[in-house]
């Protein structure tokens, strides 16, 4: 049924040893790209971009806050999609991708919360308020943690992955809430200033480092995900011959 519409190479990629090797070759490249674009973005953001006329230099937190915030939502989306595949077609690789995305998403959500509150102190005069966006982002962190916790609560890892995938799907309603909260409720938090379609209301000198950093975080996500998926595959397939050769053969690879 799957084979009808999934191309052969994709089908093959879904086999754990193939994906293990594929991810192994791609991961250093992703990491290098992430480091390169990240360095450029940092230079652009911290050195080249002018200070904001209102916020002074504090606004430079934007170059990590906003990409991290986007990633926290984007990764939840990826996780939800993979969870859907895992539940409907029981694809092992989809389970692994969903479950290994969760810690990365949680990391970005955590960064968003911390950088946001570090930014909020000088801007709003408080580390934390209970407004809609901040709260829903915190709820997002709890959803990630719930998924991770449920996954690890099971003895059988694949069963745990499916149960956690179900939870991830239930929680996906929170993603639009985070994104649109600034429109639906009037809050302290800033509304959308950056649009991919239509004109952005941000100075181009600030925009390009932001977009470059966004690219860097995407590359980083892929690099980290590949590393995690490789490890998880080793664990899941620990009895298979290909894992044994890795274990007994060269320790580094």
């Amino acid at each position, binding site marked *: 049924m799957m084979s009808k519409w999934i191309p052969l190479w994709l089908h093959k990629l879904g086999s754990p040893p193939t994906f293990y090797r594929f991810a192994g070759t791609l991961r250093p490249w992703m990491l290098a790209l992430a480091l390169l674009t990240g360095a450029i973005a940092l230079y652009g953001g911290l050195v080249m971009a002018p200070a904001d006329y209102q916020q002074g230099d504090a606004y430079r937190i934007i170059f990590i806050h906003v990409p991290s915030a986007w990633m926290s939502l984007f990764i939840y989306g990826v996780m939800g999609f993979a969870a859907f595949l895992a*539940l409907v077609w029981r694809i092992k690789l989809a389970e692994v991708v969903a479950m290994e995305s969760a810690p990365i998403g949680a990391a970005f959500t955590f960064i968003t919360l911390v950088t946001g509150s570090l930014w909020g102190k000088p801007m709003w005069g408080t580390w934390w308020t209970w407004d809609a966006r901040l*709260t829903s982002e915190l*709820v997002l962190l*709890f*959803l990630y*943690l*719930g998924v991770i*916790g*449920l996954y690890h*609560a*099971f*003895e*059988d890892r694949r*069963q*745990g992955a*499916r*149960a956690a995938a*179900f*939870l991830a799907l*239930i*929680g996906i309603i*929170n993603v639009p809430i985070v994104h649109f909260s600034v429109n639906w409720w009037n809050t302290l938090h800033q509304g959308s200033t950056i649009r991919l379609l239509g004109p952005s209301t941000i100075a181009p000198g600030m925009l390009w480092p932001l977009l470059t950093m966004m690219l860097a975080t995407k590359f980083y996500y892929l690099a980290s995900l590949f590393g995690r998926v490789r490890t998880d595959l080793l664990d899941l397939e620990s009895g298979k011959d290909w894992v044994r050769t890795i274990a007994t053969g060269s320790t580094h690879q």
Partner: protein
Amino acid sequence: MNPPGLTTACAAMLRRDLTLAWRRRGDIAMPVLYALIVTMLFPFALGPEDTLLQRIAGGVVLVTVLLAMLLALDAMFSSDIEDGSLEQLVLAPQPLALMLAMKILAHWLTTALPLIVIAPLLAGMLHLPTAVMPVLVLALLLSTPMLSLLGAILVALTAGTRRSGMLLALMLLPLCVPVVIFAAGAVAASQQGLPWLTPIAWLGAALVLLLVLAPLACAAALRIALDA
């Protein structure tokens, strides 16, 4: 030897759970006592200042009821899982979602209802004005079933694990944040003399939606958690 009709099966299911609860009627009293004591702790922790207590009464009662329900939630399926009757239920020739709905109903009747009955007492201990009581009860009547329904889904998900109630709390609380916000919003509005119908209406709408969807989701979750 045909499977019994739907009504018969539902009634049997409901009766079974209510009888079991009655056998352990001490356990029914526990959430109530727990809520009482937690509510009592607040005046000690915050100092017996009437206006302050009055201001927080509605919210504290809501949170307390929620926590008490949470503690009882863990037991919704656990004994059935231990003795294998849940597996029997899954294999029974009846729509699983409907049977689960009956279980959830029984659970609500035995844990939430007693809490709702004493909620005015708890609120009274914190000096909530009498005029606000009906709104509080109404909000509880609408929000506790939602907690039961949402909780049932999550409890079903954790059915195959060596569970800890804490994991359940972690999973449930994000989902019930909106419920708490709307319920507390209604109580607060009524306390300030503002119209409180809008949040109550939202709660009602969400409840109707959940009443339809949650049993189905619960059945799906249970099948995932039981089948290895």
